[in-house]
């Protein structure tokens, strides 16, 4: 192990990983290139589009500007960690049912941001959904069907 390598131990989607990463390596790189979890998308590499959003200890972060070396002991959750083999999460299912997916490139990041939102605010209002999405760009949908999806997935809990 050279000087610019860092050993970290973290969980990704509840699976333990011991990784040796370079000092400058982003979490997005580690996910996509080391763990081959390509569901998390690389949009801008500037922390602006939100396509790379994952949850670190339950909070949404832009994985393209977060150093993996800082994640020792953390719990990372990606789109591959939503739902299970048999069924989709409520949010994922609502995205399918309300046509909230078009090209789908922003979708994983949207779902992670919104998963964090509904874990903190179980029945968000449309305005709360819109403001939670202030770091997630979608160029296809104009956002309405994404907002509808969250309301559909969470409304019955109100």
């Amino acid at each position: 192990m050279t000087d610019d390598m860092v050993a970290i131990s973290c969980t990704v989607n509840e699976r333990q990983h011991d990784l040796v990463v370079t000092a400058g390596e982003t979490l997005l790189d580690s996910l996509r290139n080391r763990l081959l979890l390509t569901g998390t998308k690389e949009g801008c590499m500037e922390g602006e589009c939100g396509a790379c959003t994952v949850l670190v200890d339950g909070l949404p972060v832009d994985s393209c500007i977060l150093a993996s070396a800082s994640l020792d002991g953390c719990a990372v959750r990606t789109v591959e960690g939503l739902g299970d083999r048999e069924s989709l999460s409520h949010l994922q299912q609502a995205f399918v049912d309300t046509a909230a997916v078009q090209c789908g490139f922003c979708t994983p990041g949207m779902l992670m941001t919104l998963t964090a939102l509904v874990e903190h605010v179980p029945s968000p209002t449309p305005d709360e959904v819109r403001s939670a999405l202030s770091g997630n760009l979608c160029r296809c949908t104009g956002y309405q069907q994404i907002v509808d999806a969250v309301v559909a997935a969470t409304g019955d809990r109100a």
Partner: protein
Amino acid sequence: MSAVGLSVPRSDAEAKVRGSATFGVDLAVPGMLHARILRSPVAAGTIRSIDTTAARALPGVHDVVTAADGPGGRTGVIVFDIPFLARDYVAYEGEPIALVAAETAQIADAAVALIDLHIDEVAPVATLEQAMAPGARLVHPSWADFGTAGGAQFGRDGNLVAEVFSDPGDVDAAFEVADLVIEDTYRNPRQYQAYLEPKMALATYEAGRYTIQVSHQFPFRLRDRVAQVLQVAPSAVRIIGHHIGGGFGAKLDVGLEAFAAMLARRCGRPVRMVNNHDEERLAAPCRANAEIRVRSAVRRDGAILAHDVDVVFDSGAYANNGPALSSIPMFMFGSIYRAGTARIRTRNIYTNTAPTGAYRGVNGPYLVFAMERHMDHIANELGIDRRAFRLASLADDGHLMRNGQPLEELSILREAFDLVEERAPWAEQGKGPLRGVGIAAAVWLTNPMPAQATVKLNEDGTLGVITSATDNGSGAVTTGLRQIAAEGLGLTADRVVVTMPDTDLTGYDAGSQGSRTTHVVGRAVRDATTSVRDLVLETAASMLEAAPDDLVVEEGSVHVAGVPARSVTLAQVGQTATSSRGPIAATSSYVTPSPPYDPLCTPGMLFSAWPTPTYHVHLAEVEVDPVTGQVTVDRYVVCQEVGRAINPDAVQGQVQGAVAQGLGYALWERMDLQEGVYVQRSFETHGLPLACDVPAVEMILMEHPEEAGPYGAKGVAEPPIVPVAAAIANAVADAVGAPIDQLPITADVVLDAIERAACA
């Protein structure tokens, strides 16, 4: 109906929400190299020297290519003006100069930085004004030697890429007898498509053929363009398409593919290329910046006697599809509103800026902005209500557009005005200080280009649709084509599987552009499905010992009319056919026939008619903050003719998404040029709309089924962006009481307009 008209989910929706859908950028193959591009750091200059010695010597570098190594000549879609790599001079910031292939992208980037490049910079021809000035430096000194596709002839001269000039000869006389002459000049900036997945290519070379995996809107054009660039036969190129992370027109031409293919051959290894985001905005082809001057001769009673229109739009350093787009003003002025006559001059101009090109609606949004702002201006001058003036000016069915093409169903537009009025009564909208209402209308086309589709009955009774059509997000393939096929055999859409494009396997298709997929490919799918149905009936008839005409196909089975018990399943039919007459499949092709027009009306029109027109009325209600200059969109209503909504939720998504892009264009998005170079270099500075910025669009669907379309469907996805800037600008102008003649309508523009109104 078993499938058409239902809001069924996309076939790729589950994969996309799970993150398992493979986009172009997710592809990797063993042994692949990574290539990066040395791009011009300046807008214009002469290449004095390129020394690649240090780059070649860097460990991990496999190849470095400059213009000297590449195919010579120039290529393009319409004008052959683009060199493989810049050879003697650079014509825009970002123009590719050299390629590096290496073990990793990081090594390739490091090698690019080691290339010793000397450019003698010259002052760029940065603006339309500079490019058109007498004695202006030519962006391409050898422009006269550039060939054109098919030898096409149109007005070209130095920095003038193309000119379309229509002058019926009676315009000046109309101005002489006019009561009023109203003149406006409108300006609009560029708009960046801002799709999230950058362009990419993954190329391999084997046994004399190139295989290129991409996320691309138009695989067959890509095949042909790669072949043109590399000077090989199109059959030597195979394009395999994957999920596309947005395109909106930016992924219709060759991008990185020919570079990756050439490097794969030279290196004997697969080569992957992906643009970084800054490269992407340089290579995007943005919607062009333009200036539109409109003069109208008007009679006191409101009759428009003549328009005199002068449109100048920026091609950037290369022509792309600009010569074809130069025809579009011919369909925007004097088309829906009556005008006695019209002179329309459109010029497409070379500058030392990144090339412009296709973006949803191409130059429609700014032309309708100009036309509809001008209509408001005329109405205000005449003291006529703006909506009433439009209704009085609206032409009737059969009205001839400037190309001589009749709009047979133009009265749909009058119906659209009425439907908007029912939903949002004009007299009640935009009331109160600093509130305003705007209305705008448009006619748009459905792209007619060719499609082929094969439909097969599988032995389990499901259907397969084999097509090169691409779904860049609209759902036209993943819902629409499946629904159209399903309906033909009374199946639900989940019983239909549709392929991804592969130019070796799937029939020709002209790509996801101009809302064509549901209408044109859908028609081919419908026709092929009809043939499959005939074969199903023939086979079932012998199985059931009945005449084909006595059979009913529904819910996955075939039965004798009135005797449901005498039935066979589609699976039994499929198996029986396979082992008797052979597997059931049918292929059909379709191109929208050209509508009638006058071919002699205007020389140089490469885009001569407006097939399968659709009709649109948009209404916007806004509120302006006099302190911040901020515009809030309180209400947005769209009334759109779709022929037949195959999937209402998908239609809603296209309309909502297009309006969001249109609001960005109208109000916030910046893509400014300074000395030929883009100023805004990040998503944040572009000012793209966020979830908080975009209201829920109220949609009124109109369905006048089009006989030629599958189940009556026309195009949907492109046009809802077209009238947005016009409706918003009219609403803001109404709110502030002063004209709005430029886009985007930023806070500065609004505050300036408020001040002008106060001084008036």
